[in-house]
């Protein structure tokens, strides 16, 4: 029982299944096998080999076997010099004409901090259509959260606290001047409330994931939805304030439908991206799928920022009719900020996506206060 608390990697009832039709041709071969290689990232040079320094092969071919470096049909690896006993190799064999090979359940204790990898390898062409079933369990010293996610639990705990402090401050200000509250400020209250809920939900999501090893889909869904509503509302508020709504002009006139349309599209794109990225997902998304979803969000986000700055320049221009020089200066300022936005670098390569919480999340709430002052 105490063993359960220590970091480990565990295979649980892993079954390999080979298709029936392939079976006839391989009946004669002695026994096809699937090999499971577990290694730490620093030992990656110990895996695979090549005869004459060409491209590295993971499987031992007959050519390499003739050189006496390895046995044909098995994985090539050398023992690690830094981690004695690693890499670890496990084998599941298909006996005779069996269609199923089972990997016995097993727990590998992890005693050294590192980035561990598990490869399922077969060197037998007859196993090309192999199917794999079962689960692997990865336990870190602090819980089941994957290493790249474990700082997020503390981050969202802190953010929840920060939002509570912000909420108290906002509520205090709100109460102090409740007679002159604008409808806009009620929207800001909504954004802060949604932010508080979002951060708390993310915290509970990661706490639950850490405890059980399974991502709770319900909590993820609501965290994503609250967050997306919050972001959309925050962007729309900043945009309509920039347009002068409630301060310079009483209505937005014909622009309302355009604002609603941009907001709606932004909401849909963001919600889709975040759901695909987080709902029940433990691994990173593959490159192209993610890029396909990231670009709409990035473009719509940029559209918001550009529209905000254009409207802001117009509004300030209107307020400052008597000082044309300052007005031009402001226009210049906004335009240079715009060109910065347009020159944004492309999003980072997806496979190294680090899940750093976006600064954007902080922006919505931060600006609301400046707006109030």
């Amino acid at each position: 029982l105490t063993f359960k608390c220590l970091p480990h990697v565990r295979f649980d009832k892993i079954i390999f299944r080979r298709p029936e039709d392939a079976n006839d041709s391989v009946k004669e071969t002695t026994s096809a096998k699937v090999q499971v290689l577990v290694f730490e990232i620093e030992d990656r040079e110990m895996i695979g080999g090549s005869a004459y320094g060409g491209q590295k092969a993971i499987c031992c071919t007959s050519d390499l076997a003739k050189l006496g470096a390895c046995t044909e049909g098995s994985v090539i690896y050398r023992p690690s010099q830094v981690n004695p006993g690693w890499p670890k190799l496990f084998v599941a064999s298909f006996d005779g004409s069996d269609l199923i090979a089972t990997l016995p359940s097993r727990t590998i204790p992890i005693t050294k901090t590192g980035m561990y990898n598990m490869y399922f390898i077969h060197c037998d062409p007859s196993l090309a259509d192999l199917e794999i079933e079962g689960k692997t369990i990865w336990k870190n010293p602090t819980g089941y959260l994957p290493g790249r996610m474990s700082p997020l639990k503390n981050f969202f705990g802190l953010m929840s606290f920060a939002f509570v402090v912000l909420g108290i401050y906002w509520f205090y200000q709100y109460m102090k001047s409740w007679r002159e509250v604008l409808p806009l400020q009620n929207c800001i209250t909504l954004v802060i409330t949604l932010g508080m809920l979002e951060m708390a939900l993310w915290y509970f999501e990661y706490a639950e994931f850490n405890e059980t090893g399974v991502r709770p889909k319900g909590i993820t869904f609501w965290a994503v939805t609250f967050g997306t509503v919050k972001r959309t509302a925050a962007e729309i508020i900043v945009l309509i304030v920039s347009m002068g709504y409630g301060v310079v002009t009483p209505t937005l006139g014909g622009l309302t439908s355009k604002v609603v349309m941009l907001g709606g599209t932004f909401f849909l794109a963001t919600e889709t991206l975040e759901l695909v990225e987080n709902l029940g997902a433990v691994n990173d998304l593959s490159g192209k799928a993610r890029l396909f979803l990231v670009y709409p969000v990035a473009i719509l986000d940029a559209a918001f920022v550009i529209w905000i700055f254009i409207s802001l320049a117009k509004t300030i221009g209107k307020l400052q009719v008597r000082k044309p020089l300052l007005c031009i200066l402001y226009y210049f300022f906004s335009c240079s900020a715009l060109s910065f936005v347009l020159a944004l670098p492309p999003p980072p390569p997806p496979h190294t996506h680090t899940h750093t919480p976006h600064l954007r999340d902080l922006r919505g709430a931060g600006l609301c206060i400046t707006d109030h002052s």
Partner: protein
Amino acid sequence: MAKLEIYRKFAIALIVSVLVSVGWIGYEVMLIHMKAIF
């Protein structure tokens, strides 16, 4: 004019946030390029 002052502060806050965001993106991209895994 009070309204103008509010908008001046608002514009500065927006510009600062955009610059900080761009800086942050640049920092992350730099990090990724410096320690590319696999």
